[in-house]
């Protein structure tokens, strides 16, 4: 009935980040993942954190949605503290590892909030088409990845719908026994899987092209901010390569 936004769902407004080309967003995201895996350099992590903050502000998505995800990982931060203490790592190392998690999660959130499901599938497909020599099922993989990314908001939407549907029949789910709640949860997951499949089928219809070139789908063109952000990521990669002595 009314728009409900959970972390992981597309936030339907217009902003500079919404207008970025989805393929460029994906390439930037992959470069970011490579950087946070390969290097522990504090300067690079600091630049990436600042970049993510700028993207969050430019996306015009309410900060509380980003904060919800950040807050939901509080036990991970605690666990990481114990692991670092166990291995005798210092506080600055702990901060670097925490920043890796935060950068990854917030960056992913920005991508998911500002890219529609059709665009997500389109960009992943286009990217995987570079590896055609591996005979990958690009369409299926892209749909599966999109389904994984959108699973949580879909689950929350279905759960909300089930609660509403029960509520209008005078039923308060909170009063159910544990056994009934587990059974209901199983039902909700089943309905979520069906909805996810329907969502992918709708995206498939939007992207459909009999010649497999996807020309029917018009996505955002490559603009000034696409090039600017891409250059930023390439510069960070260059920094990493220089630090490691690869160049």
């Amino acid at each position, binding site marked *: 009935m009314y728009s409900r936004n959970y972390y992981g769902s597309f936030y339907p407004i217009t902003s500079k980040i919404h207008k970025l080309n989805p393929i460029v967003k994906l390439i930037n995201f992959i470069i970011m993942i490579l950087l946070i895996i390969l290097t522990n350099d504090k300067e690079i992590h600091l630049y990436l954190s600042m970049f993510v903050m700028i993207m969050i502000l430019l996306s015009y998505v309410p900060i509380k949605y980003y904060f919800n995800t950040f807050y939901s990982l509080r036990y991970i931060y605690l666990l990481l503290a114990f692991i670092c203490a166990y291995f005798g790592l210092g506080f600055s190392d702990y901060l670097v590892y925490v920043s890796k998690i935060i950068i990854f999660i917030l960056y992913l959130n920005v991508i998911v909030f500002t890219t529609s499901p059709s665009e997500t599938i389109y960009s992943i497909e286009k990217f995987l088409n570079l590896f055609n020599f591996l005979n990958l099922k690009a369409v299926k993989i892209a749909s599966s990845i999109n389904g994984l990314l959108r699973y949580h908001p879909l689950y929350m939407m279905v759960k909300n719908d*089930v609660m509403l549907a029960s509520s209008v029949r005078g039923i308060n789910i909170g009063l159910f026994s544990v056994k009934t709640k587990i059974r209901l949860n199983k039902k909700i997951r089943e309905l979520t899987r069906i909805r996810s499949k329907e969502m992918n089928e709708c995206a498939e219809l939007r992207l459909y092209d009999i010649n497999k070139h996807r020309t029917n789908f018009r996505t955002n063109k490559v603009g000034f901010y696409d090039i600017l952000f891409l250059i930023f990521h390439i510069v960070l990669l260059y920094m990493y390569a220089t630090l490691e002595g690869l160049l």
Partner: protein
Amino acid sequence: MEIIFDKVSFVINKNTPLEKTILNTISFSITESGIYSFIGASNSGKTAIGDLISLLYKPTRGSIKIGGYKNSRLKKKDINNLKSKIGYVFKNPYSMFINDTVSKEISYAIDNFGYKKESKEKRILESLKLVELDESYLEKNPFDLNITDAKKLALACILIYNPKIIILDEITNGLSVSDKNKLIRLFRMLKNKYRKTIILLSKDTSFCYQITDYVYLLSYTRLIDYGTKDLLENTNIIKNANLEPPKIVSFVNAYNKKGRNLDYYNNILDLIKGVYRDVF
């Protein structure tokens, strides 16, 4: 069971880019049983009224009083008590379905009320009979039903636990003329025999004209007029609200323009008799 709205406003996604006003300072009161129609074009706020009455959402401003309980002073026990007295059929009946079979779907409402198995089965069959579905539907998947049967099933799911207030959102969408006539008979029976309060949220002025006792006219989130069903005979107000006047009213108005004096009838049969009497 009374329903009183006092300067109620409802805004969603407040303080975000997606902020939207759904209802703007609506006030009305329903104190007796009967059939009440909230009529308005799309985005006028009809569904929000149903959501607020059935306690799915709280208003942003104003107060709502249902059955003696005021929304600002409701405790959990009161909410549960009230919800068992209100039934709401969604615009999209499929979004109400959770279970794999029609029998489980209908009994979902009363599974937790401690009924014995035999009386549960009896109630399921009675509620199916009320909406003119037969036993062959019991093992069907609700999601496989066509829209007409799905709406009937959604209504059966509500009727089984005998609520005092029944809210129906766009119940006539996708229904044929014969199905609408059957619904009219059912609602009249529920109103006269069981003293229910039936709230119709609809754009279908023709259907509402045949059956309603009182009309509330909504336009762009505001309540612009209310009154008995004679309000639907005022074609200017109806057209200003982006609605189509009831077909009977349009016919009678066109007929009377030729110097005749035909009354406004409730249904087409009475209209035909009236025309016959007038002509002969």
